[in-house]
């Protein structure tokens, strides 16, 4: 989560929003010189790669829709269910602690998104402002938190969480995602991108620091706020290693931890595990499809890893 971000990244290309959209009818004519057979070959390739990339993910998950009389392993196994059924999902919700897992994950996500947004905005804003002593020091301190991988601090963080009495609690899960240093730097960069003239004008108008922040600056960084919120959400939802370290009781497990334990705790019916996997995957994938331009922006701007 941390070292992924320090290496230099190629300058991000201009975002789609910065480029005036080409006239609709001519949209594709200038962008692609593929015609006729070449175009057909291109589409065939695109579909083949699509199958290769998505097949190994979707096909095994399909077994969750098989009815309980159908085998999911062994010689007579079929690729797709012969009798589609939602039994596995019903079993999952009725006989496992899944509802609790989902609730726990949502709580951790809400905490993480809230804290990351507030802290990254406030801190990133002041780090981007000139004219106060110590900003370079603070900036370097935050930067230095990006050098080491999370895996190298997880043990001592664990000891700390235990000392604070947060072991086996959702607050303990929250700890490393309260504020990613990267979020702070992303917001700082966003505020730096606002022209000085705008701030100078607000000085002249006698706006106070808080007014300048809320009226002038905050409205200009909405896009970056979305990127921060989304990545905080995805990270909190998908994190596995840290909850695995600090959560012990079933009632406090997050979604990812919960579904990884289903196989052991739920006998041999792997259908239920796969149903859990689908349930865990859907919220993120749906979110992604509605907000994808922010995802791609996040990657291009900072090599941010989900």
């Amino acid at each position, binding site marked *: 989560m*941390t070292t992924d971000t320090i290496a230099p990244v190629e300058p991000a290309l201009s975002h789609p929003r910065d480029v005036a959209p080409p006239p609709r009818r001519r949209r594709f004519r200038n962008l692609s010189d593929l015609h006729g057979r070449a175009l057909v070959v291109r589409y065939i390739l695109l579909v083949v790669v699509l199958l290769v990339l998505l097949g190994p993910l979707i096909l095994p998950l399909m077994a969750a829709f098989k009815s309980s009389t159908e085998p999911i392993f062994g010689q007579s196994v079929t690729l797709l269910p012969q009798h589609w059924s939602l039994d596995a999902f019903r079993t999952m919700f009725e006989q496992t602690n899944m509802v609790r897992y989902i609730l726990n994950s949502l709580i951790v996500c809400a905490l993480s998104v809230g804290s990351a947004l507030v802290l990254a905005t406030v801190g990133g804003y002041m780090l981007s402002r000139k004219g106060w002593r110590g900003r370079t020091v603070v900036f370097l301190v935050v930067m230095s938190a990006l050098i080491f991988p999370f895996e190298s601090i997880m043990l001592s963080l664990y000891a700390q969480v235990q000392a604070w009495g947060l072991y086996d609690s959702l607050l303990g899960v929250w700890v490393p995602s309260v504020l990613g240093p990267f979020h702070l730097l992303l917001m700082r960069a966003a505020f730096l991108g606002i022209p000085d003239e705008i701030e100078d004008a607000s000085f002249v108008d006698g706006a106070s620091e808080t007014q300048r922040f809320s009226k002038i600056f905050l409205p200009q960084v909405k896009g970056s706020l979305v990127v921060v919120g989304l990545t905080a959400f995805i990270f909190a939802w998908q994190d596995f290693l840290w909850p695995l370290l600090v959560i012990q009781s079933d009632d406090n497990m997050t979604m990812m931890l919960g579904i990884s334990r289903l196989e052991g705790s739920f006998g041999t019916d792997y259908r239920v595990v796969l149903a859990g996997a689908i349930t865990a995957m859907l919220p993120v994938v749906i979110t992604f499809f509605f907000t994808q331009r922010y995802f791609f922006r996040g990657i291009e701007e900072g090599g941010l890893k989900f």
Partner: protein
Amino acid sequence: MSTTTAPVRGPGQGTVPSGTGTPPRRRRTRRPPEVRNGAARYRAWWVPWLWVAAPVVVVAMFYLFPFLNTFFLSFTDASPLSGQGENVGLQNYRDLLSDPVFWNAVLNSVVYALIVVPLMVLLPLLVALLVRDKVPGIGLFRSLYYVPAIASLVVISLAWSAILRDQGMVNVALMDIGLIDQPISFLTGRWTLLLCAMAVTLWAGIPYYMIMYLAALANVDRSLYDAAAVDGAGPVRKFLTVTVPGVRTMMTLVAILVTIGSLKIFTEVHLLSNGTGGIGGESQTLTMYIRAVGLDPTYGSLGLGSAGAVALFLMTIGLLIASQRLNADSEN
């Protein structure tokens, strides 16, 4: 930035009290001196610190302190239950370096990197080239391609664990076409388990790095391809002489990120082996080793685990420095 004295039109203009007698209007509309100096913008020196206090405290408490504490713990015999322990000097490091399980984990990580890095540098680039041209519908393809990267490692690992087990689809299919008589135990052999985990890493990583390459490819001058075509270059030649030099910086970056990522692999191996790291933990990665020796409820030693964490950190830093050197060399 010019120090203009012209009246500034702004929304707050009307609210400035014009006063009586000599209106201070001229002075008010002039840029205040503090703006020109770029100093003393705030009511007091501590106002900016008030703003950054909370974020800095969080970063210090949850990142920097644990980091320093890792070094401290690695010189003690602290256990996961007792917390702080006695100073034992370099004993943990001696134990670490003489632990065959540690070297085993290092070897696993090195093999992981050796296989994954070249594939992860090349395959996403090829996919990016495929989705670069803006043919109708390309946006949908790009989005769908990205789904494995967003689907979470846990989900992919659980799905693959279903098809790779002894009675899973892969073995069944291989037996059906007569390639093998007995199912292959992919998930128990040391190297087959690691290979399966690598496949998961690749599947989840290709779409992610594809997007990074797309950004880099946008900066490659298209006319170079035409020039190469005039010189009679085929697709392979164009790839090697135009594409690769054009995205070389990004290729280096991807190589560094993936190498460091290989040191940190955890979820894939953990889930494909049901948390054991293979028979006797022989497929354990470095992160699994740190967790296992550090947090084992009975035999755990936070000290030894922290020594492993320090080793992981040093390897990461070493790789970063080495890559910087290589980069600097290749640019000269």
